[in-house]
């Protein structure tokens, strides 16, 4: 399935800064870094569960915001890149 993960980590203190880096490091092992706090990519159900549990161990549920959009299939789905440059999710580089 395809997922889009967006996060907004509260970085008011050093703790937050650390959490931000940890979240980014975890996410980049599973899917592609598309924009500053946006990740996107193909993932299996089991790996998604693993990703979620890893993230939940790191984030602060009260202060941060973390949203995952899940597309079971890519029917009725369009994705347009309006800018120049390579598609960040491409597997040919």
């Amino acid at each position, binding site marked *: 399935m395809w997922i889009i993960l967006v996060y907004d980590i509260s970085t008011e203190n050093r703790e937050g800064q650390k959490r931000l880096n940890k979240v980014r*490091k975890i996410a*980049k*092992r*599973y*899917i*592609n*870094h598309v924009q500053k706090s946006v990740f996107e*990519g*193909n*993932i*299996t159900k089991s*790996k998604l569960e693993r990703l979620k549990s890893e993230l939940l161990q790191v984030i602060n549920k009260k202060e941060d915001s973390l949203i995952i959009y899940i597309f079971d299939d890519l029917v009725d789905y369009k994705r347009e890149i309006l800018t120049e440059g*390579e598609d*960040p999710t491409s*597997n*040919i*580089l």
Partner: protein
Amino acid sequence: MGRVYYITHSGELRREENTIIFENSSIKKSIPIEDIDELFLFSEVSTNSKALALLSKKGVIAHFFNHYGYYIGSFYPRETNLSGFLLIKQVEHYTNTQKRLYLAKAFVEGAIVNLSTLFGLRKEDYLFALREAKNIPEVMKVEADLRKDFYRRLEQETGWEFEKRTKRPPQNPLNALISFGNSLVYAKVLGEVYHTQLNPTVSYLHEPSTKRFSLCLDIAEVFKPILSDVLIVKLIRDGVLQEYHFSEELNFTYLSPEGRRLFAKAFDELLESTVRHRRLKRKISHRQLIRLELYKLIKHLLAEENYRPLNYASL
């Protein structure tokens, strides 16, 4: 299931933040390790043991190709799917002449059936010759004749000159494409064999002593028509690959990096595209077809079900 990643630029492959990162002077891209199933490295890539350790831990095979697009070899991580029992069965089928001949014929039959249906060749003569073949060299002769017939067809279909099959070095674009396509299929089959209990060195049609993973060569016979030969014709017909994608250097012709990128892209799209499988009653990607073929072979070796090669037309 992850994806296959193809790297066509030269640069460095490193481990960073527990994932794989590819970097050169113009690009820096981090590749999600959990999304990699296999790596195809088409140009000069340097790496280190830290990166290989991570690949090994995650069971990712890396296939290396040299500057000219020739297959160098694969980084084959520590085997985790081992079965001594199946290995014994594999060897039994090799040492028993009749059993070996059955499998060798089956692989060539797959090649005949698939190549003829895809290119409208007459298969009856070849199938007859195959039935009559008494030993492995005769079986290989049938395969060679079939290929010769196909190469003539290839010239007609593409309008490009072929003359004869030349390797090391290939002497014209068509030969270069065939070599490149075959090595992709061969590497891809190896990637799938890794995930089964089969031992890639024990083979039936090809001699197992050729210092290669020769079982992959056997299985590749069945898939070359579908995954490589058709692709070559399609790429030339659609004008994706043209004369300028080949550079002549030192008197031989090879695919340019851009040409290799285009070929790899088309190859990947083909692998991920699906066909409806009648027996399984669901859609199966071409990549999964290879795995299914290996499972069929395992069943044959374990005497559960006789191996019949994939007939692409009857899917």
